[in-house]
């Protein structure tokens, strides 16, 4: 079972986001980066499958944000190799172009599965994994929160989430690309000390990102913060006075009696 995981860095939403002077991009001066949540789940799912079936996990990432830290963390968690695709990503990159780069990096490579997050918070033109599948001529299913692999038959049984708590199960021929919504276990934790240790003993392969820009990307005319619709009445004061106000509001609505 050889698995490729595509991971990327995205702005941390815990920090305040600001628009830069050009008005179409985030102001990079204030950005902090973290690993896209669903890519973390994709890595976890890959590690779980490796534990079950053996094989290797190879992580690919574009050189954005804290890519080194993310890749070393992946190695510390149990990935076998990590590849950093370097290039000029100072202002980020659209998913169409990212998919083109991944395609170039993976052409001719042998693998059974490509796992990646179903979507990232900055995927304006859609998820790169779905587009990569199209480039490679492989089947793609996204919004997946469970995978069982049947190595004997070269297929995977995946469970895709629908609204209302429904799951749809599909059988997919391998190799395939799967957009992960959630791993079958919460992503594992690895202590900083282990990551530091990994930095000393393991290394990241670095290659230049190649691949032409692909038609289908879009250009942003304007980025701006939503106005707070102004609908909410804000309650202020001490916790107790807020609680009293809330109690009145609930009572008015006939709640909690």
């Amino acid at each position, binding site marked *: 079972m050889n698995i490729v995981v595509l991971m990327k860095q995205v702005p941390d*939403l815990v920090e305040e*986001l600001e*628009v830069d002077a050009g008005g179409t991009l985030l102001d990079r001066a204030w950005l902090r980066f973290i690993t896209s*949540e669903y890519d973390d*789940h994709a890595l976890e799912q890959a590690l779980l499958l490796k534990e079950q079936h053996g094989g290797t996990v190879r992580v690919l990432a574009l050189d954005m944000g804290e890519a080194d830290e993310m890749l070393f963390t992946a190695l510390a968690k149990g990935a076998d190799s990590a590849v950093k695709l370097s290039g000029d990503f100072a202002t980020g990159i659209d*998913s169409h172009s990212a998919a083109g780069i991944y395609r170039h990096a993976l052409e001719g490579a042998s693998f059974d599965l490509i796992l990646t997050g179903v*979507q990232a*918070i*900055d*995927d*304006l*033109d859609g998820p790169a994994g*779905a*587009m990569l599948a*199209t480039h490679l001529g492989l*089947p793609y299913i*996204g*919004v997946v929160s469970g995978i069982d692999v049947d190595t004997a038959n070269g297929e995977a049984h995946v469970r*895709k989430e*629908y*609204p*209302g*708590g*429904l799951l*749809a*199960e*599909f*059988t*997919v021929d391998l190799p395939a690309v799967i*957009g992960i*919504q959630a791993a079958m276990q*919460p992503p594992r934790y690895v202590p900083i000390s282990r990551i530091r240790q990994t930095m000393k003993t393991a290394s990241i392969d670095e290659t230049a990102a190649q691949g032409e820009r*692909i*038609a*289908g*990307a*879009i250009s*942003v*005319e*304007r*980025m*701006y*913060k*939503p106005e*707070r*619709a102004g*609908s909410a009445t*804000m*309650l*202020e004061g001490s916790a*107790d006075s*807020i*609680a009293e106000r*809330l*109690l009145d*509001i609930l009572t008015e*609505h*006939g*709640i*909690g009696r």
Partner: protein
Amino acid sequence: MHANILVIAEHLKGRLSGIVFEMLGKAHALATETGGGVEVLLMGHGVRALAEELGLASRVLLCDHPALAAYTPQACLDVAEQVIARRAPDLVLIASSSMGLDIAAPLSVRLGVPHVSSCRDLRITAGRAIVTSQMYGGKMLVESHLDLRGAIVSVLPGAFPEDAGRIAREAVIEALPVEGLDAPHMRFTRLIEQSGTDIDITQTPVLIAVGRGIQNRENIAMVEELAAIAQGAVCASRPVVDQGWLPMTRQIGRSGMIVKPKLYMALGISGAPEHVEGMKDAELIVAVNTDAQAPIFGIAHYGVVADIADVVPALTEALRNAHAPA
């Protein structure tokens, strides 16, 4: 220039999703404005009755095939590609949903046209589509302009009024031939319902919802206490469920439950569009969040900028006192 718009329909368990009517209503308004028409692509097997519901469209393109009986990404992608290539619409609308997410971006690659996701507003001005998308968990709006040459737009559920698309009018239905679905690399096997012994939160009038701001599993206990005294139930955003702190039956949002309770109290939930999809129609929304900029305050009726750990015990206490015999 008139805009001809193609809407891709989706359905589950014999029902069209609400977003289909949202897109149809919007497409109809835009097409009417520009003197164009709207076609809806409906893929399925034995779904003519659903086509009848789409009378507002100029034409319903019905692709009926046993391989389309259940939604399967590969089959839908193949059929949608063929139909779009043949009809050459100026603009294509797809739901930003579990199903739509699988096919919108691949279609854009196959057809060599742009794709914009997470649309919550759409206009046509001077021959271009102007799309406003909700990005970064709802913390930024992004406006992009697209030529009307087949661009694909993924529309967030809740972006447009559903009623506008539900017009009782006789549908014009054209059956299209379906070809080339013989060698599938994926097969639908079954639908799994989350049945179980848990309560049904879609039937619970008072919901106290916790998000990542709850910080750990232990803190859920104080929220359980509040819910008990308010005669409600605890539910959650996705990260809380992904951590295993609450079961999936308690998740609200795109991939969880859609609820319309009398009260929805959002504690430490930022208000990402995928969450809001599941609770925006609650009668009364109260949000508690330490971040005054959190998008949840954009849809809440009442907001409190504070720590859950301060507000929840105080409210529990206030409710308890109110209940105590005088």
